[in-house]
């Protein structure tokens, strides 16, 4: 055990893991996170607290993760390289570990021009692969990036994201390999709608034996409307939404129910893909739907380990 987090235990025990996302609010109100944590408790093995997602200023992921801990819910704290240099990131990791956070997700981060502080000076001192490298060194070698020794190492289960749909496609498996070699213990993927391309990626992943070295949690996003589907297809970088999905949403009498149905079908399918060790549900601004999805996908109750 690297950190002894619930997520790590579930994965190590060979269960099909479930993680879900909680979006911190654009305010100082802790109740939003608290409410979602309470409502979602028991429906996933751990919950991602996004870090100023799409470069929009929000309640910090560290604070949100602590609120989850207070509610008895296990957090996965997201940490992007966009806003902080290696000094701040390492400091936050130590702080997070000291506060009892045991899962961390290393991300490069969306560019600030997508958010509500377009004129911000970005940092990008390190990239997500280097972030993994540094965090692993802190955990396993008790040393910071610069080499100085730590009296006490942070205990964290290290995650990273991967997008099987970005280009160049042939490089995406190599990029995953780099993340694994840099220290990723688990991977959460971008939302998958194009199953064919995902399968092709997984083939490459298995060929390299990467599925044996890292836990892959496949990402899903339940769709609320055809507009949301179109938005993701056209506006979200690195996302492929096949027309068949858009058609289904368009034809549906009850788009929300259809979105849930598609999501559950996807999870059922992902369960059968060799090398996929779980799902990551990103119900963006629709956290309420997660329990229903988890139940209907036959993933409730979550195992106790």
């Amino acid at each position, binding site marked *: 055990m690297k950190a002894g987090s619930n997520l790590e235990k579930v994965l190590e025990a060979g269960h099909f893991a479930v993680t879900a996302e909680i979006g911190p609010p654009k305010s100082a109100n802790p109740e939003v996170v608290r409410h979602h944590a309470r409502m979602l408790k028991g429906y996933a093995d751990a919950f991602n607290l996004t870090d100023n997602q799409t470069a929009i200023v929000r309640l910090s992921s560290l604070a949100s993760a602590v609120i989850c801990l207070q509610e008895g819910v296990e957090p996965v704290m997201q940490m992007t390289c966009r806003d902080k240099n290696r000094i701040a990131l390492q400091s936050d990791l130590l702080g997070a570990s000291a506060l009892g956070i045991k899962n961390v997700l290393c991300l490069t981060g969306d560019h600030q021009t997508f958010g509500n502080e377009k004129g911000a000076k970005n940092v990008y001192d390190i990239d997500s692969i280097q972030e993994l490298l540094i965090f692993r060194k802190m955990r396993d070698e008790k040393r910071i990036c610069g080499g100085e020794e730590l009296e006490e190492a942070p205990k964290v289960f290290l995650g990273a994201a991967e997008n099987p749909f970005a*280009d160049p496609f042939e490089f995406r498996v190599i990029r995953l390999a780099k993340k694994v070699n840099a220290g990723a213990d688990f991977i959460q993927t971008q939302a998958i709608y194009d199953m064919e391309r995902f399968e092709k990626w997984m083939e490459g992943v298995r060929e390299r034996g990467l599925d044996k070295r890292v836990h892959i949690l496949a990402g899903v996003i339940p769709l609320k409307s055809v507009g949301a589907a179109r938005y993701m297809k056209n506006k979200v*970088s690195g996302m492929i939404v096949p027309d068949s999905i858009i058609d289904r949403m368009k034809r549906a009498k009850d788009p929300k129910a259809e979105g849930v149905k598609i999501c559950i079908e996807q999870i059922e399918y992902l369960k059968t893909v060799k090398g996929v060790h779980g799902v990551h549900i990103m119900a963006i601004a629709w956290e309420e739907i997660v329990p229903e999805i988890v139940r209907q996908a036959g993933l409730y109750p979550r195992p106790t380990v």
Partner: protein
Amino acid sequence: MIIAEQKPLKEIIRNLEGHKKILVAGCRSCVAICLAGGEKEVGIVAESLKLYSDMHGRIWEVDEITVERQCEKEWVKEIKKIVLGKDAILSMACGVGAQVMQETYPDIRVVPGLNTSNMGAPEEQGVWREKCAGCGDCVLHLTGGICPIARCSKSLLNGPCGGSQNGRCEVNPETTPCAWDQIYHSLKKLGKLELMEEIIPPKNWITSHSGGPRRIVKQEAILTSEEKAVKGGME
């Protein structure tokens, strides 16, 4: 070369407020090539300023000159005669040239006429693209001759982010290729794709601006005090 573009005339006019005798000073090097501050552009700006001045009761006396390189004192000193007596110089050089001008003539206010953007190259006629961020520790040998620091919007060192699609950068898909997509294809052509598998460790940014203003010293090129005295005497 250094890429710059002219400031809006309105802003130039506002920044020159309160002055009387103005010299518009261009540069025949980079900024001339990128059509921002060469002889021709100096002429146009000077004419515009004169016109504005005439319309506002001849508030300015405007002269113009273009030097070989405004970033070198030697060239800037040569225009001493025309500079003296002016109370503002509108520098149509890059930020370096404008600063050298100010250093050379510390009593005369230098106002920038250009916005200096980047170190780049012409891509096609009328289009310039950034190529180098002057990080001080070049990694082009690892990246197929394409700079990830200047040309990737996130300065990534280990391959494309999740936003790279159809060879375009997520930040400006219409205008900007994804540098890492280009690196991938370049390395493929060079038969060096294995370089993409290597993890490039965190960069040491000390050689970049993060280490503070930089200075390069070439000991053997520095004049001795004797040589300096001789040179000074000749000036």
